[in-house]
């Protein structure tokens, strides 16, 4: 018995000590969650976003932090495993008591964590372009809605400069984002007089690596009529074999342009881009955009990558659109929390409305007063031989997001703000 008693005494002492230290610790820092896949098929895209959150946190801390406290990031790895995203989100909110979570890339991961955030009343900042058709009070969408990316890109392909495409291949990874985006695009193309016979829809599983058959199919489809263009919503590391095959098979952008919605500077790292010159991507930011804010931001990222010896980034630092959206998100949340003088979810949500930030895309982007989406400029870029993009088309200024697509009949009459619960 004495042993048990001693253990009991020690553990209660330890507990008391822990309890005593807890408030002290909580007073020092505000915890924020980072929920990005650091392994599995999405790690190619999401790892850089995790590092960008950390750099943004450093930046916020260097400028006085939030409410006079330093931010303390809690990083978890949901491993490209969608149910694990929900588990890790719950762990971040209930165990680590984070004030806000920055995370997710694929829409399927966002759909997986959404009930957790709504149930626990926490806040998620989602930094990637997506399919819309969703508006949660607990999420701020700092990436593009379809009208800020997909629709302008297809309009460009149909324009004279874009090659006057008349036939479209909608190629994607098999999950909710590509399927919904393609549903919207199909409705949009119908409105433009494109018949179903001139649209080919094709899906591959996550992590698919053999694109020979798909590319043969695209070639055949293209030879059956007028100018054809490919709209790619392939996500994750499948893009590397896809673009390698595209180059090896000699599918040139001047014949069949491929416009991608989830491929940026980071995904093309290590792909030989010389055969891919002219293929397109639509985003709200490109690394090649020239302005002082962007130059300073790239410099800051390069220094950060070198100082922290980030694999790949230290030798060849690259920035991309979701990284920019992450950067904007962290700063806007910090500014909103400071304005609200609290990290309470509802108070921050109220303070987020109308927040503005001088973004690396060259504009002062603004959070919409109601719909939780940013007003963002749209750029269309063509791949250059060095793996960067040259901007061939852009909107004159930021565009307001339409989370509910006007091309989907069921969306008629849906309110442009989250339902109050």
């Amino acid at each position: 018995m004495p042993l048990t008693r001693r253990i009991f005494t020690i553990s209660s002492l330890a507990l008391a000590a822990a309890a005593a230290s807890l408030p002290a610790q909580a007073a020092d820092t505000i915890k924020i969650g980072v929920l990005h896949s650091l392994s599995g098929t999405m790690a190619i895209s999401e790892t850089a976003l995790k590092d960008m959150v950390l750099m943004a946190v450093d930046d916020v801390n260097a400028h006085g932090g939030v409410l006079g406290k330093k931010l303390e990031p809690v990083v978890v790895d949901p491993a490209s495993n969608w149910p694990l995203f929900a588990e890790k989100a719950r762990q971040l909110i209930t165990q680590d008591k984070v004030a806000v979570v920055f995370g997710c890339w694929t829409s399927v991961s966002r759909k997986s964590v959404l009930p957790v955030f709504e149930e626990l009343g926490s806040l998620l900042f989602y930094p990637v372009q997506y399919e819309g058709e969703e508006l949660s009070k607990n999420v701020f969408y700092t990436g593009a809605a379809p009208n800020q990316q997909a629709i302008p890109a297809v309009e460009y392909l149909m324009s004279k400069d874009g090659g006057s495409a008349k036939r479209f291949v909608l190629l994607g990874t098999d999950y909710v984002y590509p399927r919904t985006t393609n549903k919207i695009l199909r409705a949009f193309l119908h409105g433009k007089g494109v018949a179903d016979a001139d649209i080919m829809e094709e899906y591959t599983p996550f992590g698919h690596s053999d694109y020979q058959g798909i590319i043969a199919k695209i070639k055949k489809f293209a030879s059956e009529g007028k100018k054809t263009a490919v709209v790619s919503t392939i996500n994750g590391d499948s893009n590397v074999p896809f673009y390698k095959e595209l180059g090896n098979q000699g599918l040139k952008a001047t014949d069949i342009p491929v416009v991608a919605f989830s491929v940026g500077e980071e995904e093309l790292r290590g792909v030989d881009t010389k055969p891919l010159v002219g293929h397109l991507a639509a985003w709200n930011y490109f690394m090649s955009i020239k302005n002082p804010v962007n130059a300073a931001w790239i410099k800051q990222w390069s220094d950060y990558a070198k100082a922290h010896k980030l694999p790949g980034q230290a030798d060849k630092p690259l920035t991309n659109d979701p990284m920019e959206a992450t950067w904007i998100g962290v700063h806007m949340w910090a500014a909103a929390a400071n304005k609200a003088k609290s990290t309470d979810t509802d108070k921050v949500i109220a303070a987020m409305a109308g927040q503005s930030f001088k973004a690396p895309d060259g504009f002062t982007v603004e959070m919409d007063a109601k719909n939780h989406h940013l007003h963002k400029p749209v750029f269309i870029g063509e791949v250059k031989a060095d793996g960067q993009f040259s901007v061939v088309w852009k909107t004159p200024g930021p565009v307001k997001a339409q989370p509910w697509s006007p091309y989907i009949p069921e969306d008629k009459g849906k309110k442009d703000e989250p339902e109050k619960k």
Partner: protein
Amino acid sequence: MPIRLLLLCCLLLAPLAARALSPAQARALADGDTDARIAALDQAVAANAPGLAPFAQALLDDAVKLTPAAVLVVDGAQAHDAAGGAPAALPDDAADVVNNNRMRGALQAALAALELRAPDPARRRAAVAALAAAGLDESLLPLVEQALGAETDAALKSSLRQLRATVMVGASDPKRRLAAAQLLVDADDPGVRGLLIDRVAQEPDAAVRAALQDSLARLDARLAWGERLGLLFTGLSLGSILLLVALGLAICYGLMGVINMAHGELMMIGAYATYVVQNLVRAYWPAAFDAYVLIALPVSFLVAAAVGALLERLVIRHLYGRPLETLLATWGISLVLQQAVRSVFGAQNVLVENPAWLSGGVAVLPNLVLPWNRLAIIAFALVVLGLVAFLIARTRLGLFVRGVTQNRAMAACMGVNTARIDTYAFALGAGIAGLAGGALAQVGNVGPDLGQGYIVDAFMVVVLGGVGQLAGTVIAASGLGVLNKLLEGWSGPVLAKIMVLVVIVVFIQKRPQGLFAFKGREA
């Protein structure tokens, strides 16, 4: 009418500049909206403006910059004026000239059109092919007519006529349309197909329509061959990957009866060995970078074989004859290996670059391009297959392996060190898995879970082929590859994978011993 004014300037200035573009021409080509630039380009091509070809090439190479005062061509750190060629300082604020796909297509067509005048017939042939591939634009028709008039080579003359026909098929005179439609009978470019389908749909004249349909039918027949061969090739290419993946397993599982769930991870180790060799070669011997694959393959074999030998000695040896325990133990090992690689190299995919000679492809037919990396893997799979078959059937080691697997006690009585033979055989299987990993690094992603994507396929091939049979493995691998691609073309890759699994399940139920089986007391 600013364009016309611009053209007038060009015309006036052209005779003045002897060997270079005029400043106005250069600016018209490099600055402004795409419509105006293409108009200026057409005009310059028609006028055969001097210095146009190098400038168009510089535009294509993204080597042209604009300042308010001049159009500069950048060459490394230096720059020269596009008009006149005088060296010029490159200001920091010089703007890049951005060419979109449309402009780039027009520039390529213009360069090809200029090449039509080249003295060398080979260059002219290449130019005609480039124009045909790009689709001839009406604005270049006069140049083609001109070239046709001057052409002496009969073969080139006929391809030029065909090229002209792609534009003439839209002429207003039905006779010319008919002539063009008849000329297109010999067309073999897939791009012409879309044109013909389009023309058939809107042709009012019955005779012309019949001629168009005839040309289209013949073109389709020719292109169908390319498609069939393409399907066969993609099937064989997938089959060759399956074969490489399954060969090692055919030895471990087929010959030795070890259910090795860590087979995929041995492949992953081979792929990482390739990655390490690539980095070492790049760091210490950059001149030989293109040959790194040749160094990487033996290294992947040796590393994977060493890991395999270690596994056999430490774990598998103690579990012979207990398949369930072996399965669990090797599955555990696979997790350990994955985590080990994650700890050493990180959880992200690593980058394995294709050497230059494995990039690109060879065009066999107008609609069939065979990529070099796929061809190389097919050849490599055949070589590995040949080596394994030789090793098993013709060498002393192979004899011992076969002896031990057939009758261990008898082999031991004959003085064979059966324990050592087990290690050798398992290491050989593991080494072949390493080779497969090294080859796969050239076509797919290299990450810690590389092996998991292939382990099921590997077991499928070995079981389907008949356990213990190399010939069965070969036929099963290529058969599954072609079947998979056939179904993929028909139903998409997601459904195809499911259907292949169903086919295999049904097949194994009807014939549990696989395609081939030992005919003997065992079977």
